[in-house]
């Protein structure tokens, strides 16, 4: 028993100073952009977003939802001049 306790004490100490490790995960996001309609270089939706969760996808040059921080307010959808955006309810609320 005491051996276990010693080990646990050492690990508990180590756990407080060991540094950090990370992982990543996918998110289903509410803002869906139709890349065939989205105008490259337009940025209207990106500027409309009150929480700045949209950005240009560097790979495609089109807008996309980069951060999982949407208020489902529809500003991007309403302001898009090409009707390229559809906002769904975030899955957690759907």
């Amino acid at each position, binding site marked *: 028993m005491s051996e276990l306790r010693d080990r646990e004490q050492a690990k508990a100490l180590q756990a407080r100073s060991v540094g950090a490790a990370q992982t990543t995960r996918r998110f289903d996001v509410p803002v869906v952009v139709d890349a065939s309609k989205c105008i490259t270089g337009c940025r209207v939706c990106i500027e409309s977003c009150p929480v700045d969760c949209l950005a240009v996808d560097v790979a495609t040059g089109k807008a996309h939802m980069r951060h999982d921080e949407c*208020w489902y*307010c*529809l500003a991007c959808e309403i*302001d898009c001049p090409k009707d390229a955006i559809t906002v769904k*309810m975030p899955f957690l609320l759907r």
Partner: protein
Amino acid sequence: MTLSGHSDVTIVQVDVVVVGGGSAGSTAAIFAQQALPRGRVLLLEKANIKRSGAIAIGMDGLNNAVIPGHATPEQYVKEITMANDGIVNQRALLAYAENSFAMLQELDRWGVKFQKTETGDFDVKKVHHNGNYVLPMPEGYDLKRILTRRIKQAGVKVVNRVMATRLLLDGERVIGVIGFDTRDGGIQVIYANAVILCCGASGRLGLPASGYLYGTYENPANAGDGYSLAYHAGAELTGIECFQINPLIKDYNGPACAYVTGPFGGHTVNARGHRFIESDYWSGHMMLEFYRELHSENGPVFLKLDHLAPETLLEIERVLHRTERPSRGRFHAGRAQSYATDLVEMHISEIGLCSGHSASGVWVNERGETTVRGLYAAGDMACVPHNYLLGALVYGRICAEQALAYLADQPPPAPRPEHAEQIEAERLRVLAPLSRPNGIPHHQYEYKVRRLVNDYLQPPKSGYRLELALGYLERAEQELTEVGAENPHDLMRVMECHFIRDCAEMAARASLYRTESRWGLYHYRQDYPELDDDRWRVHVNLKKSAQGAMHLLERPVAPYVVPLGAEELRSYHRLRISPEARSIAALGARV
């Protein structure tokens, strides 16, 4: 200017800086610039003014319009004194009420569309317990666009996507703002003769029941920035223990909305289909009855519209699905529900701080002045109870006028070495998380703090839980030094975590201090369940002490300018429909 000596620091000097371009800030900037045609008025906005603030997508009505022929300023002052259990600065309420109609007329001239009767009169509705103050704006989706157009016409200098993090001080006078560009991370310093804070509510305080961090009642950009900015500049805050809690569509977490549907015949019912409150106006007392019903054997609670005619429902949808929170329609459709066939299930929101709906905010007088020289505040973050949208506009204008009168007598702030020290300290504080790209991610930190808020601060409150909260929030302050950011966007979220934690500590300390219950659910203490006017007919204020600790103090309630009788003052305590009254009403309906 190269006062700081760092290439990432930009310094500008203006006459007035308005922080936050929502309803209050836009109005403050417009009126300041109009009165100062050659002056430099800068509007600083963390988002983009075309879609920012609480009414990013417009508003479906004015909830507190004081219109001649429908209400008098004195009646309004009485109503809000009752709704806020007597703890008000009536002079501040009166200043709003007396300027309410003039601002409404100004909006009318600007092209904001209000509902009018066939004779051209404003079509005022009754939603409050006593008087008539609600003016529908069925086409209110244009409001923010109209304000933005006026800002451009006035020639205001707008800086978007910069978030303020601290105010710049010269001794005990505020002389500017320090912040950073949330796109490129550059530090921005704005020297100004006067600063008007219009940063909105502390809306990311409690965690919505859905668990979605950004599924808040308030626009989640309103993270309590202004509360924290004012606090660290030494300003007093007041009524923080009088939380904002709202009745909302369950899971969607937006208003259902009884203010819009009430005049059409919609109302709140319990699961048995019975009405249980006399008034759907959002007061703490209404929320307490709502909370009790929700958690009783007759819960949950619903908004009932299924008895209304199809054309009435269409009219309601035209408002609710196009303005304020237009995604309501798609939420219901996604669950294959409709107003015609289904009751709208409701619950209560997470807690927040917001004087627009309750009374928690920065202490201001009837001139919009805070307790710090050179600092003004308006809108949801400034304590003028139940001030709503029109109150934000009126006080935006008042702050602009007062700030201009103040700066006429002030020498412009001259940059001094001690300012450079403040700027450098803030630069290091703000940029620190970028040196920890593998630090704790902001969303994990935020989830934890806001979950603590739900566990320990959400009413019903108790002294034991509040004390525990303080311990955990102290720990959370230490943990902020572990939170990291990889880019300026994430840095914005990290600095918002600072605001959120500050607001949580204010909420805990103010709630612990007031050892009575008041404002219905907003400050319901299980260990002190009674309202105690002998001891607690005071404002509870807090401020940062010289030693940097959170200091609580009391201010007397100023003598009323519109007197109320003791019985009258308690009228909001009688909102529950008694079972007897209900059975009599039901009998009457059958006869």
